[in-house]
């Protein structure tokens, strides 16, 4: 089945005609970042057996959906799926190595800075809910910087959100290797991945809840994003995308059913994922005033900064202020602190990196054009 042979018989809606830019994805990214920050803040509060009106209200409203408390996992599902959608689009215009380099440059340097900041905060001993003080050593920091913490027994995690970046990086490596396949047979990389995930899940001992098992359990979400992107851009038929998407969903369900110690108690992971698949499908093509607003555009650029900064910043604020001004006010201050820290992080780290990448890309483009003309 080739790209040309798979004329879309039934397809998702086409992108806006003017630019093809999916404004809805920006809105989804912002929603994902806010939800993840809220979830971790909520978990800090419930971890202390405390309550706050906002959290109680949201938990009461969402209880009939039987999703996880504090909107847990919703942000992760959104982020991973949106990542699959976006990177699949660019993988059709970037060379494999360039694709991988760009993703690595966008992810790794900000992660290193965030880990250094986390290292400093953890070493104060004020954020035990995030990481043990023992994790604040130079060898542990270096291990965290290269995801070694997830592979070397006994190593301690400095920044708990990093596991999703590891999954993304593994996906990017796979995606870059399969770009030639993707361009010729767009359905093949996700089908091949499903087979690899299935075999890996079968071969790994069920009691093992190590990193590899975590990766194969959660990586199907990015492939669902890839399939959404391929169906949307009419590279594969909608029914083919739905079939492969269902297989990846089943692999996710299987991982939950056969794994021990990998998924937290309480269930609801599959429900969150299925609801979020619907939300992404509906919202990704949103093109209204909210999705196109300058606010969403600005905030969407800062989502990675929020992702990296929210936990150390909010946890230290909560530790320092909870007993002084009460949980609700402390949570409010924590949100403001997250916003300020993320803005600072974006301006000092992510923004300059983005600009450097942009300049580099333009230089390469010019060099390419000259080369072709010569």
């Amino acid at each position, binding site marked *: 089945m080739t790209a040309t042979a798979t004329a879309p018989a039934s397809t998702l809606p086409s992108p806006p005609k003017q630019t093809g830019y999916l404004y*809805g994805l920006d809105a989804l990214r912002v929603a994902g970042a806010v939800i993840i920050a809220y979830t971790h803040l909520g978990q800090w509060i419930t971890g202390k057996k405390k309550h706050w009106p906002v959290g109680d209200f949201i938990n009461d409203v969402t209880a*009939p959906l039987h999703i996880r408390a504090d909107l847990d996992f919703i942000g992760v599902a959104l982020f991973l799926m949106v990542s699959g959608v976006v990177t699949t689009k660019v993988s059709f215009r970037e060379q494999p190595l360039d694709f991988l380099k760009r993703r690595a440059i966008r992810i790794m340097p900000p992660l290193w800075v965030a880990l250094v900041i986390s290292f400093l905060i953890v070493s104060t001993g004020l954020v035990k809910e995030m990481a043990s003080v023992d994790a604040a050593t130079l060898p542990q920091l270096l291990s965290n910087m290269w995801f070694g913490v997830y592979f070397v027994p006994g190593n301690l995690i400095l920044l708990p959100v990093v596991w999703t970046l590891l999954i993304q990086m593994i996906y990017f490596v796979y995606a870059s290797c399969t770009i030639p396949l993707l361009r010729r047979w767009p359905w093949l990389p996700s089908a091949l991945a499903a087979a690899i995930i299935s075999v890996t899940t079968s071969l790994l001992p069920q009691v093992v809840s190590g990193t590899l098992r975590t990766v194969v359990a959660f990586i199907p979400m990015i492939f669902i994003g890839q399939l959404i992107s391929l169906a949307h851009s009419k590279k594969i038929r909608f029914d083919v995308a739905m079939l492969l998407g269902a297989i990846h969903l089943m692999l996710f369900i299987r991982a939950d059913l056969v794994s021990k110690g990998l998924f937290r108690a309480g269930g609801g992971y599959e429900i969150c994922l299925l609801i979020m698949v619907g939300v992404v499908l*509906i919202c990704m093509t949103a093109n209204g*005033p909210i999705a196109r607003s300058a606010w969403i555009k600005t905030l969407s650029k800062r989502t990675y900064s929020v992702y990296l900064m929210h936990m150390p910043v909010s946890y230290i604020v909560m530790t320092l202020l909870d007993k002084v001004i009460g949980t609700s006010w402390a949570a409010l201050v924590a949100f403001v602190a997250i916003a300020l820290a993320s803005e600072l992080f974006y301006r000092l780290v992510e923004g300059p990196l983005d600009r450097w990448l942009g300049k580099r890309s333009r230089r390469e483009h010019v060099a390419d054009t000259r080369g072709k003309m010569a």
Partner: protein
Amino acid sequence: MPDQPVEPRHGPPSAIAVARATGIVMVVYSYLFGLWPDRHGLRFELVVEAREWVNRPLGIGEDFGPLGLMLLLLASGYAATARPSNLLGRVVRVYLPVLVSAIVASGLVALGSEVMSNAAGVRPSATGMLWDVIMTAHLVPGGAPLLALGWVLCVELFSCLAGALTIALGGHAAWAVPLGQLAVVGGLVLVGEPAGHLALIISYLPIAVIGQLLGSYHAKRAPGWALLLLGFTAWGLIAWAEKSFAQLDGWWYPLAACYAVLYFTTTSRMTLTTWSRLVTGWLAARTRWLLVFTGTVGWAVVDVATDALPFLLAAVLATAAVVLASELGLRASALLANRHRQEVAA
């Protein structure tokens, strides 16, 4: 997403057809392949595996049955308000299957066959059949309906009338009529646990209202934010009913409603292949007949066939019988409609 109307809107027929086709397949599977073996102490491995791997993890209860019914009601609510149509014709299309299947069910029970009646040991009587025919068997406390799924068409009929009222009144009716229905539902939930099947009707009417709201949004009859607000209110009422009525506790209807709305909204934005359009269109045209005959003809055929055949074959045979009966019902009703038109023209 009322404030994000980005894509060209496809006509309602494809959206309605997909929802109805999916919904009715779920209903037939749920009642013939899922419920029948449960009620008769059989273990059907295919269904058991599906429950283990799909239904339980995703929170879709009763073998997709409620989700299927919600899709049907969502589609009917949408159809009622998306564009004007002949009300009398629509009412006849909803009511005729009820009338015919009530007679068929009475006949089957009189012959000693089993039908999917919720009340055990139901015996046909002139009064009992009359309750079914006037669609009140599920509303009367202590009523013993022969048509176990007749209440679904009762909700659909009500939704059709509400949709027609919305279109006829125009203006603010796009939000006022749904609001009125939701107020009635809210009032009934407030009163307390109802007897009989009224709890089901109270719980499912809001989903038909959400369909009406989606139809009004499609026809641009009211601002998106108002319809969205009413949609959330409708969902809230489903959740409230679940919490308030002990007989609905544990069925997870709010989650099924969420899935139904997401599915309907997603599929309403896609175009279909000729082949898919044919299949969904064929199923959609027969939905109401398939619905009423599943619990009557289908149930009776499985009951008889399992004496001679393995359950899977019996259930497949029953499905074929339901399809055949539905085809006959549809063709007969089309014939009657044609004759009526000719008489009117003459």
